[in-house]
C-alpha cells in the first residue's frame, strides 16, 4: 500500500514536470520543471531500491547537467526568443507520432497478454529486506563483467569534453 502511494506520488510529479517542461514558453521555466521531473525519477529509483543510481541521478543530472543548461540559457540571451512563436507547425505530425507510439506499445502489451505464458513477467521480485547491498553489487558488476564498457565510457567522456571545449572556443 505504502509502495503504491509513493509510486503514484513520484510518477505524478514526474509526468506533470515533463508536460510543463515541454509546454512552457520560457526556457528557464522549462529547465526548472525538468529538474522537478528528474528529482521525481530519482524518488522512483529509490522506491526500486537502487540507492546508488538515486544519488548519481541527483548529483549528476540535477547538479551537473542542469547547471550546464542554465548556464547556456544565460549565455545565449533569450529575451527576444521568448516573444517569438515557440512551437513549430508540426503539431499534427507530433500528435500522429505520439499516438502511433502509444498504439504500438499498447498493442504489443495487449497481444502479449493474449498468448499463454508470453505476457509481462509476473514473478515476484525479491523482498526488499533480502536484497544485497546495492552500491557493492553495482561496483562488483561494473568492475568485473563490464570493465571494458566502463573504460570506453571514460574515453567517450574525454572526447566529449575536448569536443565541447573546441566548439565553445572563440575562433582566433
Amino acid at each position, binding site marked *: 500500500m505504502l509502495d503504491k502511494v509513493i509510486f503514484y506520488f513520484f510518477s505524478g510529479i514526474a509526468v506533470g514536470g515533463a508536460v510543463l517542461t515541454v509546454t512552457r514558453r520560457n526556457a528557464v521555466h522549462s529547465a526548472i520543471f525538468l529538474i522537478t521531473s528528474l528529482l521525481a525519477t530519482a524518488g522512483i529509483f529509490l522506491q526500486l531500491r537502487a540507492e546508488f543510481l538515486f544519488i548519481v541521478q541527483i548529483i549528476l543530472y540535477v547538479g551537473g*547537467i542542469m547547471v550546464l543548461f542554465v548556464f547556456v540559457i544565460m549565455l545565449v540571451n533569450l529575451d527576444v526568443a521568448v516573444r517569438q512563436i515557440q512551437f513549430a507547425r*508540426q503539431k499534427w505530425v507530433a500528435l500522429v507520432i505520439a499516438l502511433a507510439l502509444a498504439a504500438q506499445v499498447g498493442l504489443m502489451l495487449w497481444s502479449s497478454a493474449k498468448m499463454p505464458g508470453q505476457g509481462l513477467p509476473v514473478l515476484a521480485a525479491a523482498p526488499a529486506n533480502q536484497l544485497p547491498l546495492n552500491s557493492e553489487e553495482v561496483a562488483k558488476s561494473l568492475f568485473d563483467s563490464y570493465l571494458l564498457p566502463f573504460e570506453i565510457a571514460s574515453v*567517450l567522456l574525454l572526447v566529449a569534453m575536448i569536443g565541447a571545449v573546441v566548439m565553445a572556443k572563440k575562433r582566433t
Partner: protein
Amino acid sequence: MLPIGHYLFLSLALFIIGAIGVITRRNVIVVLMSIELILNAVNINLVAFSRLYGDVAGQVFALFIIADAAAEAAVGLGIIIAFFRNRETVLADEMDLLKW
C-alpha cells in the same frame, strides 16, 4: 515493488512527452531537454527490470546511459553556443543553411 506494468507505462508516458517536445519545440535548448527526458524514461525501464529479476546489470547500463546523457549535453550545448555566436538565434527552423 509494484507489478512491472506500472513502471512500463510511466516510462512510456515520459518517452512520448519527450518525443512530442523534440518534434514541436523551436528552441534548440528545450529540444535538448526533451532528449534528456527520453533518456530518463529509458533508465526507469532498465532499473525496474533490474529490480524484477534481481540482476544488477540493468543499473550498470543505466549508469552508462547517464554518462552518455552528460556527454551529449556537453557537446550539444557547445554546438548551440558556437551557432548562436554565428547566427544570433537558437530557433531550430532558422538553421536552414543546408536546406534546398
